[in-house]
């Protein structure tokens, strides 16, 4: 019916309701081939988006996405689903704005309602230095045509009445960076939408397939790995796969996969925790972020408050979560909205973040031919998923780095030219 096979619409919903017919599978279970043109490691948003755009934009369909678990099991299903493009650096803004554009058109492009809710995004400033950084971001944003401005406490109160903007609180709200196009998306739907569309175009989704090694030849290191060599394939828990191109889209596990190709990364893995309350009648219309208080919050259409924070200070691959995360979180949320103390936290969880020193990703070519990285996504991988997929596909298919991701090259850590996204926040005053 379309490039997605079965087409979803109000009509199809009614038809199924009336006939009580069966819905078709969103993706099939393919027979694994022995050789693919491209193997993407990691069946999350980035991997699936890369596969989709390889197939859709570049006609490359002999592609496999391998994942040790199920689709979207990692950060794609564990994030707090916020999208925005009000970054600080011009390179960051351009990149994330393209992503927001893709999100805008995603429901029709993928024929799946990803429930984008452009409800407005507020980043609160509690100190004059934070306000200065907000101004900086707003000014850069405006120059790049991003809808973004600094507003005062009154306007904050008008947009989000539940925030306490009185000046006598411990962390008074002096103003906020307001970004009307920012909002939230149903994160799982984005994963499923890309999976469904990619599978229809012929991409193989190989779930439950763990990569045990990357095979290389000609490199400086042992077993032909490392700089100067090239990729020949992967060794998985379900057998070997040959491929001249292997793409690392494994977020928190990025170092482990990259070390298999002999390419150590400027990455440490830290858990990022999130939590959700029981549902309550909707009262919070915007997405609210406080950098100083390390908290962000939005209310889903189901009435739950979804919270996130900054990454755990201690690096670990453990997903158990901590009590102190919920304590800090609740304390800080109640600083902002003291009236919601009787809401109850229902569930907490963690995801793994691949943190780089400059809070920017590492994308594109590596010193090993055919081994590509799309890693270092830290806490902002969800926002970037669509554009990362699009630009990685372009880079792989065309054999040269897509313009939007040139600043995020792996070389910057040897050249000493880090990206300034962390710049604004690195020195606290």
């Amino acid at each position, binding site marked *: 019916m379309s490039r997605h096979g079965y087409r*979803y*619409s*109000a009509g*199809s*919903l009614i038809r199924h*309701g*009336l006939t009580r017919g*069966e*819905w078709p599978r*969103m*993706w099939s279970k393919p027979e694994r081939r022995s050789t693919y043109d491209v193997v993407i490691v990691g069946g999350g948003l980035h991997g699936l988006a890369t596969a989709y755009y390889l197939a859709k934009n570049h006609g490359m369909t002999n592609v496999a996405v391998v994942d040790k678990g*199920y689709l979207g099991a990692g950060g794609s299903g564990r994030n707090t689903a916020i999208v925005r493009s009000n970054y600080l650096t*011009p390179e960051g803004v351009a990149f994330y704005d393209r992503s927001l554009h893709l999100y805008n058109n995603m*429901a029709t492009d993928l024929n*799946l*309602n990803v*429930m984008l809710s452009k409800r407005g995004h507020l980043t609160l400033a509690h*100190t*004059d*230095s934070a306000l200065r*950084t907000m101004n*900086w971001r707003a*000014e*850069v944003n*405006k*120059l790049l045509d991003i809808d973004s401005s*600094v507003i005062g406490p009154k306007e904050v109160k008008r947009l989000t009445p539940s925030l306490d903007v009185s000046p006598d609180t411990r*962390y*008074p709200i002096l103003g906020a960076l307001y970004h009307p196009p920012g909002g939230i998306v149903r994160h*799982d739907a984005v994963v*499923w939408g890309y999976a469904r569309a990619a599978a229809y175009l012929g991409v193989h989704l190989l779930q439950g397939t763990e990569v045990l090694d990357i095979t290389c030849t000609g490199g400086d290191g042992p077993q032909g790995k490392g700089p100067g060599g090239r990729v020949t394939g992967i060794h998985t828990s379900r057998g070997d796969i040959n491929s001249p191109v292997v793409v690392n889209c494994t977020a928190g596990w990025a170092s482990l996969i990259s070390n298999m190709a002999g390419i150590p990364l400027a990455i440490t893995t830290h858990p990022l925790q999130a939590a959700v*309350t*029981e*549902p*309550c009648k*909707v009262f919070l219309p915007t997405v609210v972020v406080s950098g100083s208080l390390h908290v962000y919050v939005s209310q889903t259409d189901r*009435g739950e408050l979804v919270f996130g924070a900054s990454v755990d200070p201690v690096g670990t691959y453990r997903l158990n979560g901590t*009590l102190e995360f*919920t*304590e800090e*979180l*609740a304390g800080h949320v*109640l*600083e902002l909205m*003291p*009236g*919601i*103390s*009787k*809401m*109850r*936290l229902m*569930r*907490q969880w963690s995801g793994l973040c691949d943190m780089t020193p400059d809070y920017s990703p590492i994308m594109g070519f590596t010193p090993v031919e055919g081994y590509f990285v799309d890693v270092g996504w830290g806490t902002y991988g969800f926002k970037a998923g669509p554009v990362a997929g699009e630009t990685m596909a372009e880079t792989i298919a065309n054999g040269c780095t897509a313009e939007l991701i040139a600043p995020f090259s792996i070389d910057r850590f040897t050249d*000493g030219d880090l990206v300034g996204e962390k710049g*604004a*926040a*690195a*020195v*606290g005053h």
Partner: protein
Amino acid sequence: MSSHRILSRPGELIDRSTRLSFTWNGRPYTGYKGDTIASALAAEGVGVFSRGLKYHRRRGILTADHWDPNLAVQVGDEPNVRAGSRRLVEGMQVTAQNVWPCLRFDIGTATRLVGRFLSAGFYYKTFMRPRFLWNHVYQRVLRKFAPGGQVHWQTKSHDNYDKRYAHPDVLVAGGGPAGIAAALAAAKAGASVMLVEQEPELGGHLRWGGPDDLSVLDGLLEAVQSCSGIEILCDSVVTGRYDHNWVAIMQRSHPVALERLIKARVGSLVVAPGLIERPYVFAGNDTPGVMLSGAVKRLINLWAVSPGHRAVVFSANLEGDAVLADLESAGVEVVAVLDARAGDDVVRVKGKGRVKTILTGDGQTLEADLLVTAVGWTSPTSLLNMAGDRPVYDQVAARYFPQSLPDNVLATGGITGDGSITELVAHGRETGTLAASRAMRIRHDRMSATARSPKPSFDRPAAVSDERVPLRRVPHPECYQSSTHGLVDFSEDISSKDLIQAAAEGFDSIELMKRYTTVTMGPSQGKLETVNAAAVLAEARQTAIVDVGTTVWRPPFAPVSLGALAGQSFEPTRRSAIQNWHEANGATNMLAGQWVRPDHYGNPMAEVANVRNNVGLIDVTPLGKLDLRGPDVSRLLDLVYVNKWQNLEIGRVRYGVMVAEDGVVSDDGVTGRLAEEHYLMTTTSSGAGAVWEMLEDWLQTYRPEWEVHVTPVTGGLTSINVAGPRSRELLKRLVDDVDLSATAFPYFSVRKGSVAGVQDCIIWRIGFTGELSYEIHAHSGYALHIWEALLGAGSDLGVAPFGVEAQRILRLEKGHYIVGQDTDGLSKAPTASLGGLVKLDKLDTIGLPELRAAFQRSDLPVLVGLQTEDPSIVPEEACQIVSSDGNEILGRITSSRMSPTLGRSVCLAQVYSSLAAAGTLLTVKLVDGRRVKATVQEQHAHVDPEGERQRV
């Protein structure tokens, strides 16, 4: 309304002599002390408590305990209160949630008409076009239908929540027979024990059992209450077990705090939560009047409430059989008993608002208003999951069992197997003994390793292996679903049909199914529905339940209020010894990190003028101050600062800048040499802590052979900057043991002396304002005396205090940059124009290779002084410097102010190095969009670039 209260029961919790009044949806009701909200209402004949999430069908009592998904109500300003467990309080105002306009007539029921179209994930498949409608209509409607109670966000108070720490050797989660026995045995073995029970009373299922159960319970209660080593916390729940046995307990039974979070480091955790009865899946299983056997027993035996008039019992186990006696004694007519073990089944229940007819597996239609199901259990393995266990399904016993646990977590009671009360108690006892033995070993290790603790007075217990006789696993039918479809998840309104559809669409792993359908994601978080969901999926996949696996149960075990998690707000603030004076004298405060300090005293512009013309005082105590002693201090300074320190004379101070290993400017300050081996270092206010830790790091791990002692003295030395042309004159009046003349005490020197009679003050002649100025560092206990003496002695000189805002203007007029404002996270030494300061010929300095590399480059941005063409325009800080004809970013304003001294605006800006030459004309884009011209200045300083005013 007829009373459903029956005659007194032996184990009843209600106090019939104390009546409590409350309202339900605005109408007055009464109950007894000891009632739950639900039992009191049920006693008054209320049968409908809420409506379903999606189809808004009426809902009644299902489990009559904390996990009852149908009993979430609003109590005053508290949403989502569990009416099945919350005890009645006089005056409670209880209302139904998720209904509009009221419980009896709910507009939302209209969704039932379209129910057949609302299959799992229906919202993903529609509302896509036109996009306008999604943004402005569909989404708003969806949000209106959000479930749950009303949060009173307008309230400004935060209520009384509280926390405490605890360190029990053994913590027992669950106060049923096995838990009590475990606690007793552990205490007997010498362990300190905490026993936590979710209900307000100990005893677990013994409480609603027969006379034998009650008599065993009496014995256990007597023993546990007379045992001194056990802290009993009822109406409290263990909500989480985290790494290294860090355990969270939410205590509701506290006299002062509404809720209290207890954080316990536990030696051994004993998990004894009992079992949760699971519902049966069939058509109409959410009709009020369909109850689980546990609900019926609790209602009758704990609250003396009759659950109905005519009952059908569908039983698959002995507990279900036992409910017959309770029903009989409560005067409920038992219409039929359906035995699942004999192949009987329930196919469908009909009735609107209450069970009316029951269609059985053999085609009979029974008339009744109560259907009691007893089809088995869910193991609440939540805490075990958190301890790393992945419980495994046992087909024979038809439930999940623990698989492997770390040594410091033990399970006992129903979660591990079946048995008589005697067997459960025996297993609990053995568990308690084992837990205590392991905990005492941990206690021994802790005592031995901890510096402050005495040597243990007991021998380290040997490692004991687990030799407990496991409880039996009694065979139980796998009784999950009838031949019809019914609800699996009551709080999310998810039916077995939805799950099967999801599996068919490809969401056939339990995790994907959960995410797609939201099964187990509602407030009950899988407590009732996990096993049924797995069973339905197994059937859809035509595989065994054991192969389906389960979702991972995440903390918390039971929902915890944000208030309890937050507790009291602990947000430390720091205050200088003069801060009270500032506040009493008109200061407007600002927050600077943790410090509270005066921003100004009313008129910062006048404060600036007074410093330029007369003399001003500013409290700069937040400046980080580190006392450095030892023969190797200068080597340390050489390592951490970019400049050289070997030749600093005693009595001199020097400015220094620090960079990190990556070459980025990290801090600055002055350091003075007070004596041969004694220095005082100052840092930025916000950098004080980090610089101290950094110095310790280098000294301890890199140069342990160096002899340097670092002592932070920030709050101990109150710092007062006396600035202005008349500062020397003022100081002369209060200092008689130091020669303050320009020759004896030159710029960038330090002296020790008395100020206003306070001895041992450190005075250095430096300043951030560009004026003649002295910085006094005085012992804080006497600092207020000095401050007041300075003000008192200089009234004729025009002395007045000034705040941070005036200081910012003064320093900007003088062109002094601030690390972190005029530099950022990428700024290296050349950006801050430190070329003259940095010494690249040292052998070792933090960040040396990056310093050397930075000075090889010509493309790093440069900090410049900048003035707008129009002197009245003050470009906002963070304004961008752009190409004159476009939007290309060429730099930004880092600091800007109106200068009262010059009567014009002044700025510092970071610009591309190619634009840094004096006289370059730049375009600044203001926040309001206007573009104005500005010129790069010769120097950073706008006022007195030659520095004559400060050297006098």
